[in-house]
């Protein structure tokens, strides 16, 4: 059954591997073949077939011995933001060209310890700053989906665009992503897959190249909700090397998928009904609400009054943290160093290195962050944004205290747009892509995008469920109910 094995879900592949109906090497070969045939998607930035096959052989030995973990022999793609020992890890930035970490991120170390196989590193927006994968030094990743009767290349979303594209196109069984303002959920919605951002602190950030440390959180991007439970279980857990990682037990997320949400309360936040929201998004949201109601949940209207201030608060806080985190790229310890002219000193080295190494969007955000943190503006911008952030979190706290179990919203304000279509837009217009997702990062909550339908152009649309802190198990069960009710099974017709 190895032909077409790359199209399996993680759960189905696990079962087949355990029954020895399929070998990890054959499964990996099927994915490597699909990966090579998928170059038109530009999803993989660095391929690691030798590592993959060595890991697959080790997985087969472990499977033969019995009692192998869920992910044993499962081929994954890894976002380029994760440091992987000896393998290029450059956050899709020229400033990290040639960087090969001497260490392994906690997340990838845990995945490999569980027997997972790494096919390669996935394309993304530079330093995870972007919503379309168009800021990458590797070029644009491409969405496997196209509008009906139109071969315009579409964005897979961003920043985890390569992850989304690779999973949707069956180049790998699942992938890792990271989400600072929506970078797992928006690309998942644009490509018809599942993506969960866990509670801040659930997954270790150690060895993940930092963007905005108080917002960054890694999570899985998968074909199904069940697959998300398997990946998240292996990625999560306390790590002494990340002081913000939570010392809490990791539940059996898969066991939480009972499919029963009777008596649960779902909040529908009125502030997410944006002016000018496409009718199709509105209809999808109503449809999703009805599906959860049919499953026995109670639907209540709720108010999250500070929602409209989430994006401006985010675009103060995230660049401020980024300007600090990205100060380390100075051309001294790793990565790119500019060629210097006669007489250039260390300041010229910094300035030329960073001008050459960082792309336009990264430069813009570093400079905005520098400005809002500079003397005289710190209180007016940065401290005010942190106060607004506290109010945004309080909105959610109040909703949950009033008995809400999960909140249902659209995942994105549109379906996937064309690559280049936003090229002449104001930077702020691109930022609006995160309007439904960014609140969740600011409040540190878990959020999941679930594919629910296709729009009139034939493109996938997703809904987002937001859960209580540390209640990913319950959130995943809600997502599972929505997934089963929606019955989304469409795949992008293969053109690549």
């Amino acid at each position, binding site marked *: 059954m190895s032909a077409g094995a790359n199209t399996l879900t993680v759960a189905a592949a696990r079962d087949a591997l355990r029954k020895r109906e399929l070998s990890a090497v054959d499964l990996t070969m099927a994915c490597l073949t699909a990966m090579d045939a998928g170059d038109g998607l530009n999803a993989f930035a660095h391929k690691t077939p030798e590592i993959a096959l060595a890991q697959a052989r080790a997985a087969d030995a472990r499977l033969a011995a019995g009692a192998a973990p869920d992910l044993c022999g499962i081929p994954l793609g890894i976002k380029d933001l994760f440091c992987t020992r000896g393998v290029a890890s450059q956050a899709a930035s020229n400033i990290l060209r*040639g*960087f*090969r*970490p*001497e260490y392994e991120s906690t997340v990838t170390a845990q995945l490999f310890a569980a027997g997972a196989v790494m096919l390669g590193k996935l394309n993304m927006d530079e330093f995870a700053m972007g919503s379309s994968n168009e800021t990458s030094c590797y070029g644009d990743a491409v969405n496997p989906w196209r509008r009906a009767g139109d071969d315009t290349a579409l964005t897979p979303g961003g920043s985890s665009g390569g992850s989304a594209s690779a999973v949707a196109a069956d180049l790998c069984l699942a992938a890792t992503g990271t989400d600072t303002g929506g970078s797992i959920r928006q690309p998942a919605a644009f490509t018809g897959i599942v993506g969960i951002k866990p*509670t*801040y*602190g659930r997954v270790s950030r150690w060895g993940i190249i930092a963007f905005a440390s108080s917002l960054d959180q890694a999570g899985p991007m998968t074909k199904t909700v069940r697959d998300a439970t398997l990946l998240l279980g292996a990625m999560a857990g306390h790590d002494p090397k990340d*002081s*913000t990682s*939570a*010392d809490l037990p990791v539940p059996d997320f898969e066991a939480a998928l009972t499919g029963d949400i009777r008596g649960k309360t779902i909040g529908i936040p009125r502030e997410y009904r944006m002016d000018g929201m496409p009718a199709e998004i509105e209809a999808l949201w109503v449809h999703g609400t009805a599906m959860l109601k049919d499953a026995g949940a109670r639907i209540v209207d709720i108010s999250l009054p500070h929602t*409209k*201030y989430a*994006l*401006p*608060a985010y*675009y*103060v806080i995230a660049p401020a943290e980024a*300007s600090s985190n990205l100060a380390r790229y*100075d*051309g*001294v*310890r*790793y*990565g790119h*160093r500019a060629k*210097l002219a006669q007489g250039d*000193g*260390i300041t*010229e080295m*910094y*300035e*030329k290195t*960073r*001008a050459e190494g960082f792309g336009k969007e990264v*430069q*813009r955000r*570093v*400079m*905005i962050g520098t*400005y*809002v943190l*500079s003397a005289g503006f710190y209180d007016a*911008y940065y*401290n*005010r*944004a942190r*106060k*607004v*952030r*506290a*109010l945004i*979190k309080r909105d959610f706290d109040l909703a949950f205290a009033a008995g809400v179990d999960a909140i249902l919203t659209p995942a994105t304000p549109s379906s996937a747009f064309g690559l280049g279509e936003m090229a002449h837009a104001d*930077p*702020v217009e691109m*930022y609006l892509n995160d309007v439904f997702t960014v609140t969740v990062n*600011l409040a*540190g909550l878990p959020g999941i995008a679930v594919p629910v339908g296709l729009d009139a152009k034939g493109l996938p649309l997703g809904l987002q469920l937001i859960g209580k*802190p540390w209640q990913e198990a319950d959130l995943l069960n809600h997502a599972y109910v929505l997934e089963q009710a929606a019955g989304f099974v469409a795949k992008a017709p293969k053109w690549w």
Partner: protein
Amino acid sequence: MSIDIETARRVAKLARIRVDEADLPALAGELSGILRFMEQLNEVDVTGTEPMTSVTPMRLKRRADVVTDGNIQGAILKNAPDAREGFFAVPKVVE
């Protein structure tokens, strides 16, 4: 609040990113647009609200103050653009 060319030049300097003189007006315009977007935050009444310092109300873990790593000079220098005699090398800093 808008960012003029002089401020853009100063921000670029603080950020240690070289920006050509010819590019400063466009940069100032872009930064001003983003700042205008942020100014919506002035509509919010934040009286009595403390700035958020930690999204989850938990105490950061502490660990024993002991050496847990070390003696990896080679690994640390491995990715350096210019490493010599066990050090990172940079252009001359003092005359």
